[in-house]
């Protein structure tokens, strides 16, 4: 076997765990006879050990801080979402302020006219919305800036904004049931501007949090 080429080549293959059984046998036989190659082989193994034994080096103490300071600014929506999750109460306050300055009050002031979410089969007399007897409203009903009289049935939630529920037979008067009709859901009555705001903020906060949820756990 040629020492400087073949034997040394096999040594490196050995160090890379690349030797076939046959090559390993040939290298072993050669090493038994050749002192020069034995020496070469030991030097290689020792070189690897010396390199592996050099001490570990650790990054300077402020390394991470410097990296984080140099990163480009984070996308705003992520920053806000994380902040919202960490500060739910402040979030409500922030949203309130945003609404105050983004024309929510003006929309409140302008929309003084009667608004009804479902027109079908409902009677409207002046500012009063009537669910006639025998009529069933499927789903939620919203009445804004007007009163509501329920003679029929509402199969859902009722939201009354800035209006009253008219009770025909106040003589028997016992709350909701006093009305001839029936509400198969919650009745929410919102009379004041702040309650109305709060009512919308809850919706908005819910939608922000569910949006955040989708973004943070989705694919």
């Amino acid at each position: 076997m040629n020492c400087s080429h073949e034997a040394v080549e096999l040594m490196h293959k050995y160090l890379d765990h690349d030797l076939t059984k046959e090559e390993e046998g040939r290298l072993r036989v050669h090493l038994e006879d050749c002192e020069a190659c034995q020496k070469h082989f030991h030097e290689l193994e020792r070189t690897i050990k010396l390199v592996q034994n050099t001490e570990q080096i650790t990054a300077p103490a402020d390394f991470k801080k410097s990296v984080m300071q140099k990163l480009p600014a984070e996308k705003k929506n992520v920053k806000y979402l994380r902040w919202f999750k960490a500060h739910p109460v402040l979030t409500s306050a922030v949203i309130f302020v945003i609404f105050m300055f983004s024309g929510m009050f003006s929309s409140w002031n302008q929309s003084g006219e009667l608004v009804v979410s479902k027109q079908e089969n409902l009677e409207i007399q002046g500012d009063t919305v009537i669910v006639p007897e025998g009529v069933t409203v499927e789903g939620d009903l919203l009445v804004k800036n007007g009163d509501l009289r329920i003679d029929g049935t509402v199969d859902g939630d009722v939201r009354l904004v800035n209006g009253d529920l008219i009770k025909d037979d106040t003589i028997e008067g016992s709350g909701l049931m006093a009305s001839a009709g029936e509400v198969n859901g919650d009745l929410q009555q919102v009379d004041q501007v702040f309650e109305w705001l709060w009512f919308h903020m809850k919706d908005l906060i819910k939608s922000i949090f569910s949006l955040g949820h989708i973004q943070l756990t989705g694919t």
Partner: protein
Amino acid sequence: MDLITREKIKQVKRGDQSAFEDIVSFYQNKIYQHCYRMLGNRHEAEDIGQETFIRAYVNIHSFDDKRKFSTWLYRIATNLTIDRIRKRKPDYYLDAEIRGTDGLDMYSQLATDHRLPEEEVQGMELQDYINQQISGLPPKYRSVIILRYLEEFSLQEISDILDIPLGTVKTRIHRGREALRKKLRHV
């Protein structure tokens, strides 16, 4: 790649910087050390090590989740160190120690080229001498030796990191070992 890193990278891809901070914590010593071995001095290692993480953050969307994150990160680091070595001015070594934090006097390194290794090793700590010999290898041998014996990557992983064929990795590691053997056999 472990699950925690995988999850952190998902968060970083969505733009969450605080998740990236955890990645920096986990890899900073490895990457800094790699840069230090490649570049041979702390000042440049810090500079290039930080640049590695910044590049990783900016380009996180080009990282394929099916691959190993450490391989991808080391690839960025290795490419940046090799770029830096190429851009060095010829008198770089003389400047380095004037800024120096290394304890290795580069003037004497130049001077010692004419001395025998035995004399040279007596003049400094063995550790420093070995570090210096690793740093003195040509970059293409240096990178494979460091990745194999200091970072303990497999030859296939080194092939992925350096984006060169496995056969080329083997050739370079053979030559790197031979070059180091000649430098270290007297110590």
